[in-house]
């Protein structure tokens, strides 16, 4: 009954491919493939926005309720390192954009250079984050584990470095205990962001080696472009985190 069998048999015989080797067979044209995969990455980033959104919601509410604890908690963070990290990430976004351009214009050497620079900057970011976290660990400001200490908030003078800069008022015990909430959110948010950085750096290494074998300078720059989108997104998340966590009392 089916006449599709006649046509089906025709499809079995291998026909010469008149499309680039990197075009997948379920797409009709290369443009459709680029378009679809690009769109897919944007949708994925939308899901990431919703994912971080939950954290931002929790932060919003807690900061509203415990403003003074959040202010004094944020004074414990180093503006120097935070700004350094922000700069590092913004520059890495630039180098990533340059990498995408290099791939689009088929400049393999430039592509590798910029990918390499992005990698270095990404690792630098994680290194600085490590320094900051270590500092928190040493000062017993890691919530829940490792004997969280409220001393610096009950008696700010006991922490001369921070006190010199901010001259904080001592917090009441009730409010001082809320600084632990601030640090919980600090670690949850920067931790989740750092996890996304680690994944990004891992993918970056993979892309670097693929770029070395010429995979992206033959016109098929989609992966680099889509990865660039991801990298920019992770950067933007940090650009929100930075003022929310570090700059609470600095308008």
């Amino acid at each position, binding site marked *: 009954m089916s006449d599709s069998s006649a046509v089906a048999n025709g499809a079995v015989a291998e026909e010469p491919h008149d499309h680039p080797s990197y075009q997948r067979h379920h797409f009709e044209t290369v443009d459709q493939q680029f378009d679809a995969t690009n769109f897919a990455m944007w949708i994925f980033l939308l899901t990431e926005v919703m994912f971080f959104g939950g954290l931002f919601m929790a932060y919003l509410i807690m900061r509203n*309720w415990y403003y*003074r604890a959040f202010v004094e908690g944020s004074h414990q963070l180093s503006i120097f390192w935070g700004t350094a990290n922000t700069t590092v990430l913004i520059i890495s976004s630039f180098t990533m954009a340059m990498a995408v351009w290099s791939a689009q214009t088929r400049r393999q050497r430039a592509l590798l250079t910029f990918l390499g620079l992005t990698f270095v900057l990404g690792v630098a970011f994680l290194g600085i984050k490590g320094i900051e976290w270590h500092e928190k660990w040493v000062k017993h400001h890691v919530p829940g584990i490792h004997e969280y200490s409220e001393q610096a908030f009950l008696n700010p003078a006991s922490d001369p470095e921070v006190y010199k800069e901010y001259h904080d008022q001592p*917090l*009441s*015990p*009730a*409010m001082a*205990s809320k600084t632990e909430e601030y640090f919980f959110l600090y670690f949850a948010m920067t931790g989740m962001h750092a996890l996304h950085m680690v994944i990004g750096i891992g993918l970056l290494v993979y892309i670097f080696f693929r770029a070395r074998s010429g995979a992206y300078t033959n016109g098929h720059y989609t992966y680099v472009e889509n990865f660039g989108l991801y990298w920019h997104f992770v950067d933007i998340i940090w650009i929100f985190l930075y003022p929310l966590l570090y700059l609470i009392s600095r308008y």
Partner: protein
Amino acid sequence: MDHISPVLWQFLDKWLEHFSLFPPEASKIAPQMDALYFFMVLISLVGLTLVTLLIVAFSILYNKKRHPQAVQIEGSTLLEATWTIIPLGLFLVIFVWGALLYFRIYTPPPNAMNIYVVGKQWMWKIEHPGGQHEINMLHIPINEPIQLTIISQDVFHSFSIPAFRVKREAIPGRYTSVWFEATKVGTYHLFCTQYCGTNHSQMIGDVVVMSPDDFKQWLAGSTSGNSLAMDGERLFSSLSCNACHNSQPDARGPNLVNVYDSKLTLSTGQTITADDAYLRDAILNPSQNITQGYSPIMPTYQGQISEEGVIALVEYIKNLHSDYRVVETLNTTDIPPNNEQTAPPPGQKPPAQKEVKP
């Protein structure tokens, strides 16, 4: 009846005796809620009948044998509008009606008798202001508005009295409230309806509605002698609240006489009403709730006092209309021990408080 086996008869009898489609209507709001409920049952039946009729009728009239050729119809804007607007209209009516009921149930009248409920895994602790404590039982008088102030001391629970058609979540960390007025003497179920762990299904009890006289009798017979306010006074002193809240001119803490339900300006500039929630918060989170003009030096009592203790303190402050006893306790070295208090006459305030002149 002798052809029916005894087992079957037992089953039928049990069923007929207990057969009911809704719980007894034992509160003022119950018939009102049932009215809306039955209205919705009616609408649902009409809707279901309509849909079933359409399906059955069309299936019979237009089945393949009878109607072999289908007529392609795009649609009908008129019909679409009809079955959009009519359901929407009905749903909006239901919404308004339901909203009225909701506000009614969750807005206690000012003169309601207040009873405290503390939920914990896995029991309900009920505290009458006169000092009567119950576990999993709630005795109340008929025809009197009663407000329950509910809190949990661990996880979410939910206080439910189906016969009254009321239910309210017991949340750790904040008070919730609901009110009702019982209209029928009897004993009714009390359930915990929010899953709370292993013995969630054991967290049930009875609500006993009594005539006013029976209730007075019960109150007299069940009290330990100390009202909640008296327990609160005891705590006020033992926790050294009176060290700062001592009504002296140079006191470090604000005067608490008549503070309940008054308007307070906080140090943030905000003006709030000092209700139960505020008082509880002020004891457990004082740093958020400093009265204007005072320093934020009050320590938090979080972790040092149980929910019942907080309730006792709140009751004490609610009934504080004179600082006479506060000043007294500053001057005395000890507080009369428990058993020297005589039980107050039923329905009257305990004798110790009679000395307090406004």
